[in-house]
């Protein structure tokens, strides 16, 4: 490997087809970062659809890889990092097969990367975060399929200290949004309406907030939102519009309250030096602001390490970065044996 290795990252685990080239030296240089969002297709279906996802990944990954490699072809990278799991098996295999072919043809190193480790690495792409990066760290991973508190003892050494027992936080946003008639994806819609609503208007539960564990439960929120919305669901006047905003604000605050509180308590217990907030739901402005504020007020010595907005949703730069961590530890995989691991835990 050269002194400044360039890692080709490939990500196709769910919504996004993404290809990136990351050059790692004294600084990080994101040479290419291509993401081809599939959201418009899924909007039509109200969710992610595996076969549709896989088919689109095939067409998009070929064109994105061609574009990323450019005239340099196989000389554009020194190693390959590809998401192997968790995710939809059919979608994962599109990226993995591309990566295997490139590894076979180029003879270069390949590593299979855990998508969640990729999210952890998304915070490391930020230069100011890297300066404050001192293990142990605590990461809150929040997305449509995940809600995990991960203790990071070192690069590649992690322990899940808390996770959801039913629905993920992003799922709670999406499904409560659907209950009040908002389109997919529900998270941004709730956030938009929430800024115009009163967060105390509807008393919603904060499940498991004070139970002493670091686990989460969001499924009960659906029942609470259904009951709260029932009297308004048939109305279409200005008062009902305001009720919808108030309910959105109440939902968002309920979810953020629990996420922040559990993260603070875990950070305190494990005596970490910083807190990462990563994954699709970390795009939520209220979550970012309130987490930063809670750290300042309660644990001011801790660094707040959110990922840049550009790397919050699924992307391949974060996969390349996590791949670099693995390669630096001496890991490499046999391209012949690399396969999808849909249920892979970090």
């Amino acid at each position, binding site marked *: 490997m050269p002194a400044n290795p360039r890692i080709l990252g490939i990500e196709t685990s769910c919504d996004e087809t993404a290809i990136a080239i990351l050059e790692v030296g004294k600084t990080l240089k994101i040479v290419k970062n291509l993401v081809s969002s599939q959201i418009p297709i899924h909007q039509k279906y109200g969710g992610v*659809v595996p076969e549709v996802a896989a088919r689109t990944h095939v067409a998009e990954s070929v064109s994105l890889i061609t574009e990323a490699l450019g005239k340099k072809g196989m000389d554009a990278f020194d190693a390959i990092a590809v998401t192997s799991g968790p995710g939809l098996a059919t979608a994962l295999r599109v990226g993995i097969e591309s990566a295997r072919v490139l590894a076979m043809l180029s003879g270069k190193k390949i590593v299979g990367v855990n998508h969640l480790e990729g999210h952890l690495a998304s915070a490391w792409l930020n230069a100011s975060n890297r300066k404050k990066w001192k293990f142990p760290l605590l990461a809150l991973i929040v997305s449509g399929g995940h809600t995990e508190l991960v203790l990071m003892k070192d690069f590649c050494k992690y322990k899940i200290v808390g996770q959801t*027992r039913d629905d993920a936080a992003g799922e709670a946003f999406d499904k409560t949004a659907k209950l009040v008639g908002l389109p997919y994806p529900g998270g941004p819609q709730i956030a938009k309406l929430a800024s115009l609503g009163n967060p105390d208007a509807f008393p919603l539960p904060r499940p498991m907030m004070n139970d002493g564990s670091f686990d989460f439960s969001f499924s009960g929120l659906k029942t609470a939102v259904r009951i709260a919305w029932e009297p308004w669901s048939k109305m279409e006047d200005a008062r009902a519009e305001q009720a919808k905003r108030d309910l959105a604000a109440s939902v968002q605050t309920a979810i953020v309250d629990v996420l922040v509180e559990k993260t603070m308590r875990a950070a305190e217990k494990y005596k970490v030096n910083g807190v990462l907030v990563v994954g699709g739901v970390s795009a939520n402005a209220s979550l970012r602001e309130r987490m930063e504020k809670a750290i300042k007020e309660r644990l001011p010595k801790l660094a707040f390490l959110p990922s840049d907005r550009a790397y919050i949703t699924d992307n391949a730069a974060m996969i390349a970065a996590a791949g670099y961590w693995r390669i630096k530890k001496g890991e490499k995989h046999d391209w012949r044996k690399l396969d999808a691991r849909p249920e892979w835990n970090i």
Partner: protein
Amino acid sequence: MNFIVARMEDWDLAAKAVADRLSPGSILALSGPLGAGKTTFVQALARALGSKDKPRSPTFSLVRAYKTAHSAIKQLVHVDAYRIESEQDILPLGLEEYLEDPATVMAIEWPEQISAWLAGQTHVIRMQIEPDKGSDVRRIRIA
């Protein structure tokens, strides 16, 4: 068979009754609106079948499988068709492969989404969970 669920323990009573009717190869088609308690019921069913695992929402991953400790049933497969719009999209999930296992039962949420596939299956038990208006009481109907 009908049940009213007013307390958490009631889920276990209903799940025990359903577990008694399941045999290897059974498919439980679990209908009910968003937030009705379909996943909560499957958690109770896993308990009734002696599983140590607590099922989580399969909405994102579509299929999850859990080991059980029942005399005849050794695996509970939890499927969520919520995000499936076109029937052909269930092919890559390999549901038939799971059912080839002689000690597996399957619980499917949002079975309406894959009704044609389900019509071709034998041993289907249909179950409906309906929440009462304005309360967290649920009514369960098992056909």
